[in-house]
C-alpha cells in the first residue's frame, strides 16, 4: 500500500469517508514528505505546519459531526502569488519580503468552503515571469524526475510538489503556459481554465487579461474535482463569467466516439523535439483507438503569438507591478525623496527578468510606440482568437505537444531569454484566445523525463478536455509512475 501522501485526491476522499484515515494523518504524511524531500526538490518557500494541522483537525471534527464537503480534509498547496490571510505572499520576489496577506483570495475562500486544508507556499518564477522557476529570488526548484533539471514554470513549485508527492494537489496560475508546461515537465495533470471561469481576486496579477488560476493534480478526475470547487462568478472579479459550474468529475467517463480532435499543422514544426513529437503522435493514435475522429486544422496566426504575448503581457505587467514601491508594504529602501525611494526599492527588490519585462512593457506603451506595438498586438490577438473560433467549427478539441521539449537542465536556458520564451510557443495562443486547456502525461523520453499531451478546448468546455484527458488516462499508466524522489520516500515510509 502506498503511503498517504502518495494518494490522489479521489483516493484520499474515499479513505476519509470510510474512516480509514484522518485528515490529520494525511497532512502529517505530506508534512513528512516535505521534511524528507523538499531540501532536494525545493518546491516550498514556506510551510505553516501548525496551521495545516489545525485545519486538518477541524476537518476531522467536522467529519465526525457528519459533515460532508467535496474536499473535506484534503490538503492543497498554494502558489506563492495567491493571497491567504495571515500567510506570506512573496510571489518569490524580494520586493514582497515581509508582506503578510490581509485577506483570502476567492479561490482560497472557495477551497475553505469545500473543506480543504490550505497548505504551504509554493515556489515560482518571480511574479510568474519565466518558464523554469529559476527566476525565484529565493531558491531554484528541481524536477523530481531528475534533480539536475528544471520543473518548468512559472508554477514549478506547484508541479514539483505534486510529482514528488509533497502535496495531493496544488493551485498554480497560467498566463502563457505556467500551469501546463510545468505539469508537462513534471508528469502531472495541469489545467488552465477558460479566462473568467475562475475568479482572479487575490491572485497577484502578472498580466490581468491572460492570468487564470488552475489546479495541478495527479489525475484528471482530481483536476475536475478541484475545478468545480474553485470555479464560478465572483462579484470581486468583474471579468469572472456568470456561467453555471457543473460537477465536472461526475461527467467523466466513456470513450471518445463522436468526438473530433483537431491537429493544428502549425504546431508540429521544426524545433519540436523528435521524442516529444513521437510520444504526442502516439497519444493521438490512442485517442483515435478510443473512437475519436482526428482532423487536420490550421491556426495560421499562432506563429505571432509569442511576439504578441510579450507585448500585451509586459504592458499589463508594467502597470500591475507599479504598486510595489515600498510605500505601503514589502521591501523599502529609503531615498532622498519619493522618486529616489521608488528607484532604490525597485532596483533592490526586483530580479533581472522582472525588470526586463517592466522595461519592455513600459516601452510598448510609451507615446510614439503605443500604436505600433500595443495596439497592433491587440489586433493580432483578435486574429489568434478568431483562428480558434474557426478551428472549433471543425473539431471539439485540439491536440498538441505542451512544450517543444522535455525538461532541460538547470542553467541551460536562463541566459537565453528568447529560447526560454519560445518554450511557451504551444501554450501562449490559448491564453491570448481565452480558451481552456489541460496537460495530461503521455509518456517518457529515453531519459525517463515526462512528456505532456496538451488538449485545448473552446471557451467554457472544460468538460470536453477533461473527458478526452480522462479517457486517455484510463487506457495508459503514465500518471501512475512515480518520480525518482517520491519513490525514495515511499521505500522509507
Amino acid at each position, binding site marked *: 500500500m502506498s503511503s498517504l501522501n502518495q494518494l490522489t485526491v479521489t483516493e484520499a476522499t474515499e479513505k476519509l469517508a470510510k474512516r480509514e484515515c484522518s485528515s490529520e494523518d494525511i497532512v502529517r504524511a505530506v508534512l513528512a514528505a516535505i521534511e524528507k524531500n523538499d531540501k532536494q526538490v525545493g518546491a516550498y518557500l514556506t510551510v505553516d505546519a501548525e496551521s495545516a494541522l489545525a485545519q486538518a483537525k477541524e476537518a476531522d471534527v467536522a467529519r465526525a459531526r457528519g459533515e460532508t464537503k467535496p474536499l473535506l480534509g484534503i490538503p492543497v498547496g498554494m502558489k506563492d*502569488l*495567491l*493571497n491567504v490571510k495571515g500567510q506570506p*505572499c512573496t*510571489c518569490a520576489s524580494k520586493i*514582497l519580503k515581509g*508582506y503578510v*496577506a*490581509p*485577506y483570502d*483570495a476567492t479561490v482560497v475562500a472557495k477551497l475553505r468552503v469545500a473543506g480543504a486544508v490550505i497548505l504551504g507556499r509554493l515556489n515560482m518564477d518571480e511574479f510568474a515571469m519565466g518558464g523554469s522557476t529559476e527566476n525565484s529570488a529565493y531558491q531554484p526548484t528541481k524536477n523530481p524526475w531528475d534533480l539536475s533539471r528544471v520543473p518548468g514554470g512559472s508554477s514549478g513549485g506547484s508541479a514539483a510538489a505534486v510529482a514528488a508527492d509533497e502535496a495531493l494537489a496544488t493551485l498554480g496560475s497560467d498566463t502563457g503556459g505556467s500551469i501546463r508546461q510545468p505539469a508537462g515537465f513534471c508528469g502531472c495533470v495541469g489545467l488552465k481554465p477558460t479566462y473568467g471561469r475562475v475568479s*482572479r*481576486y*487575490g*491572485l*497577484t*496579477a502578472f*498580466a*490581468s*487579461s491572460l492570468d487564470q488560476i488552475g489546479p495541478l493534480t495527479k489525475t484528471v478526475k482530481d483536476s475536475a474535482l478541484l475545478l468545480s470547487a474553485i470555479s464560478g462568478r465572483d*462579484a*470581486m*472579479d*468583474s*471579468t469572472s463569467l456568470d456561467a453555471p459550474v457543473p460537477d465536472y468529475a461526475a461527467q467523466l467517463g466513456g470513450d471518445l466516439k463522436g468526438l473530433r480532435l483537431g491537429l493544428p499543422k502549425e504546431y508540429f514544426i521544426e524545433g519540436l523535439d523528435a521524442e516529444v513529437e513521437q510520444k504526442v503522435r502516439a497519444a493521438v493514435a490512442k485517442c483515435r483507438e478510443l473512437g475519436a475522429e482526428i482532423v487536420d486544422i490550421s491556426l495560421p496566426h499562432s506563429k505571432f503569438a509569442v511576439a504578441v504575448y510579450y507585448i500585451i503581457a509586459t*504592458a*499589463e505587467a*508594467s*502597470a500591475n507591478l*507599479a*504598486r510595489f*514601491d515600498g*510605500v*505601503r*508594504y514589502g521591501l523599502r529602501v529609503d531615498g532622498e525623496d*519619493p*522618486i529616489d525611494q*521608488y528607484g532604490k526599492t525597485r532596483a533592490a527588490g526586483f530580479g533581472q527578468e522582472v525588470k526586463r519585462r517592466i522595461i519592455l512593457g*513600459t516601452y510598448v*506603451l*510609451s*507615446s510614439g510606440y*503605443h500604436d505600433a506595438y*500595443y495596439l497592433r498586438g491587440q489586433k493580432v490577438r483578435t486574429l489568434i482568437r478568431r483562428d480558434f473560433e474557426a478551428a472549433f467549427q471543425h473539431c471539439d478539441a485540439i491536440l498538441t505537444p505542451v512544450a517543444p521539449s522535455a525538461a532541460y537542465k538547470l542553467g541551460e536556458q536562463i541566459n537565453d531569454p528568447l529560447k526560454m520564451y519560445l518554450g511557451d510557443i504551444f501554450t501562449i495562443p490559448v491564453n491570448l484566445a481565452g480558451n481552456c486547456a489541460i496537460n495530461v502525461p503521455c509518456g517518457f523520453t529515453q531519459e525517463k523525463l515526462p512528456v505532456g499531451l496538451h488538449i485545448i478546448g473552446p471557451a467554457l468546455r472544460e468538460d470536453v478536455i477533461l473527458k478526452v484527458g480522462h479517457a486517455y488516462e484510463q487506457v495508459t499508466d503514465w500518471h501512475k509512475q512515480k518520480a525518482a524522489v517520491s519513490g525514495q520516500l515511499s521505500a522509507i515510509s
Partner: protein
Amino acid sequence: MNYIANVGLEVHVQLKTRTKIFCGCPTTFGAPPNTHVCPVCLGYPGAMPAMNAEAIRLTVLSGLMLGCQINPASKMDRKNYYYPDMPKNYQISQYDQPLCLGGGIEITLADGSKKKIGLTRIHIEEDVGKNMHFTASSGIDFNRAGTPLMEIVTEPDIASADEAMAFLEALKEILAYGGVSDVNLEEGNLRCDVNSSVRPAGQEKLGTKTELKNMNTFKGVHRALSYEIARQISELEKGGRIRQETRRWDDLAGVTLAMRSKEEAHDYRYFPEPDLLPIVLTQAQVTEWAKALPELPEKRRARMMSDYGIPEYDAGVLSADKALADYFEATATLVKNPKAASNWIMTTVMAKLTELHLTIGEVKITPAQLAKLINLVEAKTINLPTAKEIFELMFAQGGDAGEIVKAKGLAQVSDAGAIEKIVDEAIAANPKVVADYKGGKEASFKFLVGQVMKLSKGKANPALANELLKKKLG
C-alpha cells in the same frame, strides 16, 4: 492692443455615492486617517476593482442635465504615473471613450446677456489619497483614495475671471439640484484645474496656455485667473512669450508661480483597464435614469413665477436651492395666497435657518403645517403677531397650528360685543388718557388700542378694536 482670453476648466466633482468607486469602503468625510480603507483602495497585491454602478448613473444624470451626448460604449483606462498618494501607481480613469460628450451651460453676463460655455466631455475616475507633512516625516491618508470623481472638461470658451465664476456657480447649482454631488467646497467636493491663454484681438489662433492646478475655492479661481490673464497680457506687451507650463496659485502672495514646464510633462501610457468590463449603456437604461432628472433651476424659476404668480425676485431666491424650492411649492399649493407662502418662507423661515445654521431639510415644520398656519392668518382666525408666536412654538417642537391655537386659546376675538366690553373697561380704567385724547393728543389713542389688546391677551381683532374705540370716544 486689446487681448482676448480663452479659458478652459477641468472640474473634478465628487459624486454622491455611499461607497467608493471600486470597493465597499464608505465615502464619508472626516474619519480618522486610514480607517476607510481595504485591500482594493490600498492597492494590495491581488485586489481587484469592481465598478460602483451608482457612480455611472450619477455621471450620466449630470451629462443629461448638462446637455451632453451619453456614450453608449465607454471603457475605463489605466493612467500610469508614480506618486505616493496613488496606491497602485496608476489611476483608473477614462481616456478616449468618456461617458459623456459635448453639452454646455448658459451663463448670464454682467450686461444681462446670455453666453453658452461648451463642454468637451465628462469622464469618471478614482480620487487619490492625501499626503500629509509633519515636522520630521510625512504620511498618507488613503481614506479619500477611490472616492468617485467625475471630471467635467470645458471648451476654451470662458473669456474672463467673471465668466469662470459664473460658470462654476451655475455648474454647482445644477449639480446640487440633480443630487449628483454635495458640491461641498470645504470638503473638497469640487476642485478645478484652470487652463488659460491670451491672444491679440483679431488673431484666430489661440495663444500658448498655462495650467493652474487644483484650485478649490471659487474666489481663488477668480483671483488667480484675474492675475494670470493680466500676467500673460503684460508678458506679451513687453514683447515676451508665454511658456507652456503648469503654475501654482500662491493665495497669500496673490501671484501664480511656475511649477513645471511641458517638457517635463508625463507620458501617462494609457491603456484599457483589463480588470473592468467595457461600460455599455442602452438607450432604455438611459431613458429610465432620465426619469429621475429634476427640473433645472432656470426652468423652474420661470415656471414658479407663472404657476404661483410670485415676482421674479422671489422665484430667484426660492429656486436657488432645490430643497427650498420643493418646500415652497409644497406649501404654496396648500394656501389660498401663494405670495403669502413666499413671504413667510423668504422672511420668517429663512431668517430662522440663517440664525440657527440649519438647512431646510432639518426644519420640523412640514409644508402642510406651515400652510395651515398661513391659512389661519388669511382667514383672520389669528392675527400676525400671534401667528409668529405659534411659528416659534412649531419651530421648536413641530405640531399643528390649529391645535396650538385651540390649546392655548389664541384664536382672535372678532365678536363685537366681547370687544366692546373690553373697550369700555379700557376707557374706564384710563380717564386721564381719554381726556388727553379728547384734548387733541393723537398718541393717546394708540395707547388705548394697546390697552385693549393687552386686556384681550392679544386676541382682539385689531381692526375691530380700533373701530369700536373710535366710536366710543366719539
